[in-house]
């Protein structure tokens, strides 16, 4: 979801019979829930897939700062502004934890950023939608961070130690994000009719993109199956999506907002909500780069990186000069 459609580089799940003794021993350890650590032997495909997955996840955190950062200067009160700044700062922190986890697999931070800027690695489709009103900030915290928690809690148990540990830190901080979002929605829904209409409009626009965050349906997803085998994906896209709908609909009811899906209905037999068809055409267009804000997001990221180059170079030169002076004095 923050990492959608991660390519495992395999065309089908590897059969035990085709495994080398090393690969079999590796799979046995995964099956026994032994964590894989950076210096342990691992199959190249596992390493490459994890780099791709963690990297997508990290980029999503960093690009995810942009739609929310858009409202920091226009937050409706000083408290809301301080809260939003803390939340956006957390997202930057989450990106850093994740980049560091990926670096333990032998890829450099600069290489990952170059991959993002060149469009070789994606970030979550959700961050390509615009934040048009203050209610969008509430909806993002409530739905987008809510969906992120749903996905990240199982990842705390994933097979790669540094990734699991980063996820534990992230999850601890994430529930603040979801609550501050719901708190914004509560205030709007208890406010004037105009404020409530603004909240409804935001839900109308974010509901379906939030469901798309979990990625395409499970059917025939070979990558998901291999990732599940490696325990770097613990629950399927459809399972997580169903959990999200079941959890979120009563929260919308409490706000007095209508979920924009006329096929949404409680199914007593299944014990779950049934819901309508997702527009996968839209999802694939956004992933391909044709969402409402894809170009703007990338331009902003690249500009920030290029404009910051002189600071990075100057800081390094300054540190080197000081180190040389200390060596000289010694």
């Amino acid at each position, binding site marked *: 979801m923050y990492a959608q459609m991660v390519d495992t580089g395999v065309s089908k799940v590897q059969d035990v019979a085709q495994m080398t003794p090393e690969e079999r021993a590796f799979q046995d350890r995964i099956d026994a829930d032994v964590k894989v*650590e950076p*210096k*342990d*032997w691992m199959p190249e495909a596992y390493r490459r897939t994890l780099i791709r997955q963690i990297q997508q996840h990290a980029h999503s955190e960093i690009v995810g700062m942009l739609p929310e950062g858009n409202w920091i200067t226009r937050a409706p009160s000083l408290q809301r502004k301080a809260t939003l700044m*803390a939340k956006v*700062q*957390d997202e930057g*922190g989450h990106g*850093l*934890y994740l980049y*560091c986890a990926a*670096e333990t697999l032998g890829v*450099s*931070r*600069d290489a990952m950023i*170059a991959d993002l800027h060149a469009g070789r690695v994606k970030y979550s489709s959700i961050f390509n939608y615009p934040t048009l009103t203050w209610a969008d900030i509430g909806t993002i915290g409530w739905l987008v961070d809510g969906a992120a928690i749903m996905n990240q809690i199982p990842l705390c148990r994933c097979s790669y130690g540094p990734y699991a*540990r*980063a996820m534990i*830190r992230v999850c601890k*901080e994430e529930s603040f994000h979801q609550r501050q979002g719901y708190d914004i929605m509560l205030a709007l829904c208890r406010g004037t009719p105009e404020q409530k209409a603004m909240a409804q409009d935001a839900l109308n626009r974010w509901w379906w993109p939030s469901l798309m965050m979990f990625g395409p349906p499970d059917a025939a997803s070979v990558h998901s199956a291999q990732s599940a085998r490696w325990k770097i994906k613990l629950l399927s896209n459809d399972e997580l999506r169903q959990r999200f709908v079941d959890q979120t609909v009563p929260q919308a009811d409490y706000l007095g907002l209508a979920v924009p899906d006329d096929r949404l209905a409680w199914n007593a037999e299944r014990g779950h909500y049934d819901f309508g068809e997702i527009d996968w055409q839209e999802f694939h267009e956004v992933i391909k780069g044709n969402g409402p804000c894809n170009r703007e997001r990338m331009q902003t990221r690249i500009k920030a990186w290029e404009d910051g*180059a002189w600071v*990075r*170079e100057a*800081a*390094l030169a*300054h*540190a080197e000069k*000081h*180190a040389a002076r200390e060596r000289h004095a010694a």
Partner: protein
Amino acid sequence: MSSEWPLWEIFIRSQHGLAHKHVGSLHAVDAQMAIRNARDVYTRRNEGISIWVARSADIHASSPGDKDALFEPSNDKVYRHPTFFPMPDEVKHI
């Protein structure tokens, strides 16, 4: 592309009396910046009262391949644990 800032490993002591614990890593040009960044990245919610930073390049680690040679010998020395010696019920405070 310019050269990357070096990587530092970060250790945080959460309370008086506890040991510093590894929490993760970050990039910084020198120790001072590493400590400042560690404060922002790893202690936004009162997680610590002390920070240690060490260049990742300066950390030497045991290799997973040496695991048996290093740790196996202690497996058969159960007499190093107090539970190896059963004490009579009548004997107290031991």
